[in-house]
């Protein structure tokens, strides 16, 4: 048995914090090795060390059984290490080929030889079943395809050791399945893969071994086939984790949100939401299930006032809010955890404490006579950070941009739930979070429900929809395709409804 990567007794200190404490990870050649840990457990630091972005404080690294000193990413590349980052590093207006050869362009008579490069890329793409068209523009291809371009970039540079940093965070369920197949294909061809993730299901599906980190410390390595998700979750979090949401039956009250025959155009100018009607009552969670791109975003944008509607009506507590502004809806008791945390949810260049007051910055107690009340702002931030366990380098004064994705998400959830609005519209609330944080956020959503708030939750994760919701509405091609009792349905039935293979009465539109 030979090892492709051996990171032995790695310790990395940053000022005031030990990010990795005596961590040992050994990856066998031709296997998929998962690296599991909560947000901020030190996975990224460890991989940055392997990729030459950081130098370890102590410890040794061996690649293909030889001790190496990886001083910068160029050394890593020369050693055959490649990394697919969570946020792709592609140029939108370049073609696939141009992106892949960037930095090592083959030339012929002093000119860039894209033709032969494209041929080589096509060949690689076929070998690994990637199906990438070398001459497409990046801006024209889907996120899943873009990720494959990143994979090709590594393969083109002859990488044998591939690091995937949370590769499924941005993918749709179908794309995730495809990626799993691709990864299996890659190891079959002799590559070794290090998979950073906190999704246990995916580890179970593809990985051979799994090493677990917790708060910088190495907990252990397990054979994936000999373990189960519960066991791995326990290793990661340090206590037993419940995967099912513990909740009592809902006691639905009055209708809080009424959506009546709503039609909304999408960015391409055609109807993205068609004749959509749905009620959400106080004290219940209605989950909206659907395959990505079936009108969920358009619906949420229309409900929250972020984009105009074509026709229809939206009522909040009986009051017509169809033409009210975002602010007015907010003041009437609507909360919104947006899908895109960077674009909408946060002002990344603000310190954390300023992000917490974005809805109430000009109201007492945060503002008196137009002057910001810094003491109140600080106090509010301390309460939210404590209550929701938002972790960051400098607490309330941390630049939001510098925080990890999971903690950014927790900050938004904290802000919106803390206001306790009577209608909470929640989109992908746990995207990118580890199981511990997911458990907590689900618990808080149920608590809001039990306080008598109405909750509309949009999620692409079927498990989440099934676990948290009391009723489940399915959206397919912009239309409502059935509303089910969460206890009386299952993944299979939902899958059929989501894909349109099964039509429920009340599915108002025909193709």
């Amino acid at each position, binding site marked *: 048995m030979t090892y492709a990567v051996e990171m032995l007794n790695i310790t990395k200190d940053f*000022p005031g914090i030990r990010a990795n404490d005596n961590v040992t990870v050994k990856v066998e050649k031709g296997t998929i090795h998962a690296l599991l840990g909560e947000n901020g457990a030190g996975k990224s630091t460890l991989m940055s060390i392997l990729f030459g972005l950081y*130098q370890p404080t102590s410890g040794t690294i061996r690649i293909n059984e030889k001790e190496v000193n990886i001083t910068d990413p160029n050394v890593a590349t020369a050693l055959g290490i490649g990394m697919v980052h969570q946020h792709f590093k592609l140029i939108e207006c370049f073609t696939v080929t141009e992106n892949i050869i960037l930095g090592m362009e083959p030339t012929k008579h002093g000119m860039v030889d894209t033709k032969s490069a494209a041929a080589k890329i096509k060949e690689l793409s076929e070998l690994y079943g990637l199906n990438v068209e070398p001459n497409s523009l990046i801006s024209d291809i889907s996120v899943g395809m873009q990720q494959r371009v990143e994979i090709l970039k590594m393969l083109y540079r002859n990488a044998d050791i591939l690091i995937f940093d949370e590769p499924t965070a941005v993918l749709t369920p179908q794309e995730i399945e495809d990626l799993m197949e691709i990864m299996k294909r890659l190891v079959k061809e002799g590559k070794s893969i290090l998979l950073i993730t906190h999704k246990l299901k995916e580890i179970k599906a593809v990985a051979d071994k799994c090493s677990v980190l917790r708060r910088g410390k190495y907990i252990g390595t397990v054979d994936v086939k000999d373990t189960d998700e519960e066991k791995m979750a326990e290793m990661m979090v340090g206590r037993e984790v419940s995967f099912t949401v513990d909740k009592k039956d809902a006691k639905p009250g009055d209708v809080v949100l009424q959506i009546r025959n709503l039609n909304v155009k999408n960015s391409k100018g055609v109807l993205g939401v068609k004749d959509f009607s749905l009620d959400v009552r106080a004290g219940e969670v209605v989950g909206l299930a659907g395959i990505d791109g079936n009108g969920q975003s358009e619906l949420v944008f229309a409900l*929250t*006032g*972020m984009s105009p509607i074509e026709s229809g009506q939206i009522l909040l507590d009986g009051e017509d809010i169809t033409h009210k*502004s*975002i*602010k*007015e*809806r*907010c003041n009437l008791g609507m909360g*919104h955890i*947006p899908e895109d945390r960077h*674009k*909408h*949810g*946060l*002002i*990344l*260049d*603000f310190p954390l404490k*300023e992000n917490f007051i*974005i*809805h109430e*910055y*000009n109201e007492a107690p*945060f*503002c008196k006579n*137009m*002057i*910001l009340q810094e003491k109140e702002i600080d106090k509010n931030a301390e309460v939210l950070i404590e209550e929701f366990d938002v972790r960051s380098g400098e607490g309330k004064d941390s630049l939001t941009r510098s925080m990890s994705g999971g903690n950014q998400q927790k900050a938004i959830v904290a802000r919106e739930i803390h206001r306790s609005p009577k209608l909470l519209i929640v989109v992908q609330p746990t995207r990118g979070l580890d199981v511990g944080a997911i458990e907590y956020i689900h618990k808080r959503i149920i608590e809001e429900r039990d306080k008598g708030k109405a909750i509309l939750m949009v999620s692409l994760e079927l498990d989440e929809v099934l676990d948290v919701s009391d009723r489940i509405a399915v959206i397919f091609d912009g239309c409502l395709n059935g509303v089910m009792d969460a206890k009386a349905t299952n993944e299979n039935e939902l899958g059929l409804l989501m894909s349109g293979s099964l039509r429920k009465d009340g599915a108002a539109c025909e193709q």
Partner: protein
Amino acid sequence: MNSKKDTLLISLLAVFIGILLGVVILIASGHSPMILFNALLRGTFGINLTMGTGLNLRYLGEFIVFSMPIILTGLSVGFAYRTGLFNIGAEGQVMVGGMASVVVAIMVPLPGVLHVIACVAAGALAGALWGFIPGLLKSKFNVHEVVVCIMLNYTGMYFSNWVVRALPGSTESKTAMIPASASLNSDFLSGLTGNSRLNWGILIVIASVLLYWFIIEKTSFGYSLRATGFNKEGARYAGLKVDRNIITSMMISGAFAGLAGTIVALGVFNQGRTLAAFENYGFDGIAVGLVGACNAIGIVLAGLLFGMLKVAQPIMQIAGVPKQIGEIISSSIVLFVAMQYGIKIIIGRIAKRRLEKKEGSVSQ
């Protein structure tokens, strides 16, 4: 981390490297490098190394007079920038501001100190109006503010020239002198600085700097402007009035620039002038705003640096350095200050390498 102290050190280092390059250029073009130091010291404080004369307060006063309007245009550009807008129209706003102040000075007789207050207000308002137009077009029709601002610079210049010529008592090139009640001249400040042209405009500058800091950092209004500037979509999601913020921000930005025109007209020339070309107060303001990192103290320091370079140039010219070389030197200093970020990276790398060497020697 000592980030504030680091920033200051890096700024000083940048100025130092810039001056060093100036010295190299002077030597390469066959001049004594002392000319540069002499010009900077003499222009700013009146200290003449070769003649051995000491501090001359008149030079200090003139240096401040040169810095005042570009600090104001720096505030103008910085304010818009904090809201995510690029106000390249400060030039035009300066001219209409100066013109409006002179119009009120000559046409609206008011008693006592009311007169000068009305003139200053007119300058700020005219600048604000000149900023309102691109702000409105941007928020309502999504016309890029840079295009509108550039066009309004020309409109501002020719419109101001036309108004100035139409005033009673004007010649082709200038208006009559404004009445004393409208002037910002100060015998007190002038006397204090050896009869320089230092005037009450300095109070306007100080008040503007404080107001800038206060609005941006301390008020809820500043909060909403900063949010809009950093992330327009995020601000919209939170229900902030993004369109209104764009307009108000451009108006406040324009008002700062208008005041720059006011203090030049009422404090330095005491009359309105027609201009054949831009005087570059607005364009200097862009560099001052950006070099000053769009924060109040930074803009004051950057404005003073620009003022220093401005007063040093003619002195270098007298010492036989061609105007062009003088300008190359000033520009290099500005360039290095603007490259602070790059300098920071280089310093970071050197520090890292040194640390590694040290660690390496320890482990061996």
